[in-house]
């Protein structure tokens, strides 16, 4: 037994988050830790890796009782971790990030040349070609995530914890990482992975442990556990079979009230045309780095287009900043919600009404009663837990924080809502809810553009799908043409 923990307990401010949880990990095993948003997965990982101190229980590493007091100590024991909130330092170079605390030294001094050479070699194994001396801030989130994984793998002699490590990676990158994880398992490493993708669980994990509301539901071998039962363990109820069958409305054939013509930005997105109609969901597909997010940035005025024009209700408009876009009734829920969206010290209620209040202007505060009503409505609609609207958002689990940010934009009741990866990090129960929600908003006449890497999902709710590759739109599919195969084929054409 590599790790054996018994009766772990942890509470925050009197609220029990982990209640007598047992957990075991064998060497040479990939173990999935599963559960709904807020079940206590991240907290358990933080306790086992020294980031939090436990209130009770015991932990044994290879039979010996241990109590890592901080992450450094856990690392020294051979435990490497990628935490849910990707923790790297933008101000350091890539190589410094990889080797922080373990820099190769010569005569007591850090040997920068060697460190950068080794970092380059290490990252090359993950298919990354980056300048190891460049500061990390120059690289995209996806690349950073791979670097974080490479770093954790490299420093974990015995155990590797990965808390939603693939949240901003595309299918290709995920597969590359999984190949590496399988190899490490075969070399005898014990790996714990948290994910909300059941496909990943079945593709990778030998065993699963499920938590619900801070309690252990059980541990099973993945092989013997039908998907239905696993979902049942996680939710404590049956989930109507996830079908993701195509249910979206056919494209509407009316003149579009919001039109973009020849919009583009040199070096970011090639000029494109786009029509946005109420009652339609425009799906935007493409591999990571294909220009999807950049397109959204142009639509919302975060990046300024250097060509093309936008037209709303027949009159030309310029979108110089998000402020302009919001004034025209646009909303944008960005991909990096965790990093950029939340105001950690404000309560859930305050986080929800933020965008609405900004649109009204700060001189006309929303009455408290109305604020409460709005907050409660979305807490119920999105099943945000805990349900207390006054709790500071920083105390919510990662998935629940994301739901709050989604609520913030829904609360502004935009005429055109852009969602970038709306289901990432959200548990399977809520996942289905969000897809239903998107469909519901569309049916009420909202115009939506949704960026997603989940092709099944896109197929389920899109009226039209734009496929991007290499910073260009390469295809547009409508109505019956839309299928996962067709989207993949369109992406592949370009890749070839």
């Amino acid at each position, binding site marked *: 037994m590599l790790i054996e923990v018994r009766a772990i307990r942890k509470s925050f401010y009197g609220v029990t988050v982990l209640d007598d949880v047992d957990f075991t990990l064998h060497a040479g095993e990939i173990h999935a830790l599963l559960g709904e948003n807020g079940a206590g997965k991240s907290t358990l990982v933080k306790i086992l890796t020294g980031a939090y101190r436990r209130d009770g229980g015991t932990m044994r590493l290879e039979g010996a009782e241990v109590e890592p007091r901080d992450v450094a100590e*856990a690392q020294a024991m051979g435990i490497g971790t990628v935490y849910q909130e990707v923790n790297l330092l933008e101000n*350091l170079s890539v190589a410094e*990030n990889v080797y*922080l605390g373990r820099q190769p030294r010569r005569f007591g001094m850090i040997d920068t040349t060697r460190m950068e050479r080794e970092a380059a070699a290490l990252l090359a194994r993950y298919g990354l070609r980056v300048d190891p001396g*460049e500061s990390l801030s120059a690289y*995209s989130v996806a690349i950073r995530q791979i670097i974080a994984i490479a770093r954790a793998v490299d420093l974990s002699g015995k155990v590797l914890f990965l808390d939603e490590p693939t949240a901003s990676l595309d299918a290709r990158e995920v597969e590359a990482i999984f190949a590496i994880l399988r190899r490490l398992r075969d070399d005898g490493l014990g790996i714990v992975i948290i994910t909300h993708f059941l496909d990943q669980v079945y593709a990778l994990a030998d065993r699963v442990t499920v938590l619900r509301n801070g309690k252990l539901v059980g541990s099973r071998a993945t092989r013997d556990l039908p998907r239905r039962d696993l979902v049942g363990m996680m939710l404590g109820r049956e989930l109507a079979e996830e079908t993701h069958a195509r249910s979206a409305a056919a494209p509407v054939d009316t003149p579009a009230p919001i039109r973009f013509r020849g919009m583009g930005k040199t070096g970011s997105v090639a000029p494109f045309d786009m029509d946005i109609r109420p009652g339609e969901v425009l799906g935007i597909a493409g591999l990571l780095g294909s220009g999807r997010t950049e397109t959204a940035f142009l639509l919302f005025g975060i990046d300024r287009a250097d060509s093309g024009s936008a037209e709303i209700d027949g009159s030309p408009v310029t979108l110089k900043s*998000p402020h302009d876009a919001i004034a025209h009734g646009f909303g944008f829920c960005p991909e990096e919600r965790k990093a*950029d969206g939340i105001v950690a010290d404000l309560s859930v209620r305050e986080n929800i009404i933020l965008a609405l209040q900004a649109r009204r202007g700060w001189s006309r505060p929303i009455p408290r009663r109305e604020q409460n009503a709005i907050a409660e409505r979305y807490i119920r609609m999105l099943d945000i837990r805990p349900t207390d609207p006054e709790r500071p958002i920083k105390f919510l689990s990662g998935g629940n924080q994301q739901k709050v940010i989604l609520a913030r934009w829904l609360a502004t009741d935009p005429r055109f809502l852009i969602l970038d990866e709306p289901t990432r990090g959200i548990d399977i129960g809520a996942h289905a809810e969000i897809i239903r929600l998107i469909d519901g908003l569309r049916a009420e006449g909202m115009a939506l553009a949704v960026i997603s890497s989940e092709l099944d999902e896109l197929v389920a709710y899109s009226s039209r799908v734009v496929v991007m590759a290499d910073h260009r739109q390469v295809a547009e599919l409508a109505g019956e043409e839309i299928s996962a195969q067709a989207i993949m084929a369109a992406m592949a054409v370009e890749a070839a």
Partner: protein
Amino acid sequence: MIRARNLPFAATVLIFIIAYALCVMQFPNMLSTRVVGNLLTDNAFLGIAAVGMTFVILSGGIDLSVGSVIAFTSVFIAVTVRAGMHPAMAFALALVISTAFGALMGLTIHALSMPPFVVTLAGMFLARGAAFLLTTESVPISHPFLDTLGDLFFRLPGKGRLTFLAMLMLAVFVIGAIIAKRTRFGANVYALGGSPQSAELMGVPVRATTIRLYALSGALAGLAGIAYTLYTSAGYSLATVGMELDAIAAVVVGGTLLTGGAGLVMGTLFGVLIQGLIQTYIVFDGTLSSWWTKIVVGLLLFAFIVLQRVILLFHGPKGKPARMVPAGG
């Protein structure tokens, strides 16, 4: 190729060269090794303290106790030497005290998770008060050992002298630069300045680093106090009031981000030299009030803060914070 994060440093060096060239155009005499030698000697104590301040600011902290610690050290040395202690012994004791004092502030900052601003403000009053307790008068000191140190210099081509103080300061800068860029401690300091939470989750020993950091700043403030004592041959409890602010200004003008995480120790050397250069110019001019130093430093500070914002905007993380939707639009 200059990486974006080294742009402020390059700007500082450029400003110094241009400023020096302008000075020389007006007063050709300023182009002499004597002026350069004096520039280094006159600013030695400020430079030494500013190295410690650079580390503290790189970590995202601040140390307001520096000026008071310098005063305390100089008074402590003057009083103990007057009482018959050998200066070398007094120096060693002063360093031990100032280092321990810094370490204690670091421990307090970590253990109570108090803002460094508050803790070092308390330290500032404490050290100043302790200096007053020792004596309120200005105590002159003389000792053959001090004379030996004062006479120690290299003759530069021309009439200039590279004094012991100047060499001490340059050595501190070189060692400081090596510690910052070539040791794990230095890397940890940068990491803390980037994000204390991330640093902790990446296994940076936050407690040890914080303690060592303020101990280093204390030690260098102590060393600056020794330099100051050698420079003025006296200890006075009212000396170097507000000196920490000059040090902070030198650090920022030297290209270090006031919020931490980015900057170079050698940048601070140029930050100090720019301040010294302005003073020298004022001396050469003879009509200007010395307060112009403050005004020019103030303007430079502004310029640098603006420069750093601009660099962040253009070289900020790709499509990330600097340009991300401000929460709520």
